[in-house]
């Protein structure tokens, strides 16, 4: 009877081990501008740019690259840093993205005027500045800071020149 229990427990453990060892690994795209590549190199052809939150199945890996399948059955390579083990939290509608542009699909009607990149300080901040007697020079300085923009292309060139992440040799 005791032997039967031990054998049963061993079989259950084996089943669990096999199922976890061979189960496809689910991960999520967690970075802005995550590119799906034909091969495991940044210079390889880009198949698609995957939106944040896309759940993917990791099928293989090669150094810092993961071979994945997307929900639309596309397969390709992605740099490991672009993935996370759990789904990232989405920002609410109306928020500008990392590069300061409003993405149409996520803009709610009542917040469609959130054009901070063009307008600078919010009206509420201007009101705060007025009430607290903040010098105009500070407001202008903050306007310039908020107007600073880096495009996605500039960032790619910067990373490539520095051989950072997916651009490392």
């Amino acid at each position, binding site marked *: 009877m005791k032997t039967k229990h031990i054998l049963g427990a061993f079989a259950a453990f084996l089943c669990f081990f096999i199922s976890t060892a061979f189960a496809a690994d689910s991960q999520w795209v967690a970075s802005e501008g995550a590119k799906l590549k034909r091969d495991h190199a940044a210079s390889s052809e880009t198949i698609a740019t995957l939106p944040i939150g896309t759940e993917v199945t990791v099928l293989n890996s090669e150094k810092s690259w993961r071979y994945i399948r997307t929900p639309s059955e596309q397969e390709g390579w992605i740099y490991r840093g672009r993935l*996370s*083990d759990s789904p990232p*939290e989405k920002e609410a509608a109306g928020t500008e993205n990392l590069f300061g542009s409003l993405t149409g699909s996520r803009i709610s009607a009542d917040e469609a005027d959130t054009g901070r990149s063009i307008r600078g300080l919010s009206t509420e901040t201007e009101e705060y500045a007025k009430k607290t007697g903040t010098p105009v020079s*500070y407001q202008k300085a903050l306007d310039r800071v908020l107007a*600073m923009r880096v495009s996605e292309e500039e960032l790619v060139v910067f990373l490539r020149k520095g051989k950072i992440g997916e651009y490392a040799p």
Partner: protein
Amino acid sequence: MRPDPGFDPEVRKEKSMKKGCAGIWALIILMITVCPSGTPSAKENNRVKTAVNEESTGSGPLVEEGPLRLAGLLDKLLDPESKERKILEGATSIMSATGEIDFKSERTIGESLALEAFRRYGMPVNDPALQKYVNLVGLAVASNSLRPEIPYVFVVVESPLQNAFSCPGGIIFISSALFKTMETEAQLAGVLAHEIAHVAHKHALKSIKRARFFQGVGKITSATMKGDKGKQFEDMIGNLQNILFDKGLDQNMEFEADQSAMKTAYRTGYNPTGLMAVLEELKRIEAGSTKKGSWFSTHPPLSERLKRCREQLPLYPDQANLAQLPERFKEQKARVLK
């Protein structure tokens, strides 16, 4: 242990629980508020029970009233102009004040604080090329941070104090003095990733969640900047200045930001020990540095931070192969030293 760390599941769980609770509370408030035309109150229940009895005597079909009213309520909720919909929106807005502050309001707090930061620390270094470089490094790490979808901006300010801090909404400051203590781009990336982590974890917002300003207010609008509320907003910004510029955030928030910073730098492809190198250098110069208003007074003891960072290193077995970029950084440092 996986060498490829993902997001902290505890943080996500905490956030989703808060959202769920806010939604439930909003619904409860709505149900209580619209009770006369929706779900029956105890008094109304008695009336319905009486009506059921009356129906059995043939006086009317009131037994169907509850479900019909509920269906009516749902119809009204779908109408954006209805009173019920507005009550629900208001309740959700108030709930969001105790749970999550919307991004527009978060950014307004950040902008107001940034104005005070210029007053306290100094104006931006007048060098567009340097500011651009810092923004490129900052956005490189921000794109792989816990919160990659908001428009971060980074600014180097002229200040003799070694300091870096983040305003809610993603406005991140680094002093010229702290910049001068660094030697590589990976070190700058580590410090910026630490500040990004504070924004991503909403550490400053958590510190003012119970501010009087947010009692009965869900979001910041022009109307809330006037009268008593306007005064309470100023008090809240004053309180935040005290936390970020003098007292410092909770020590556990700092340790959490260090941990997230190493993970973010690593995911981007920078050597995650960059942050540690800055902490080591600060430790070396601590004795001869001004403490008030600097990283020395607003952050936990450097030896404890370094110890905790070292404990993270097994997560990054290939860190030695990752980018450090001392040469590219040197060119920019020369601009600050001019």
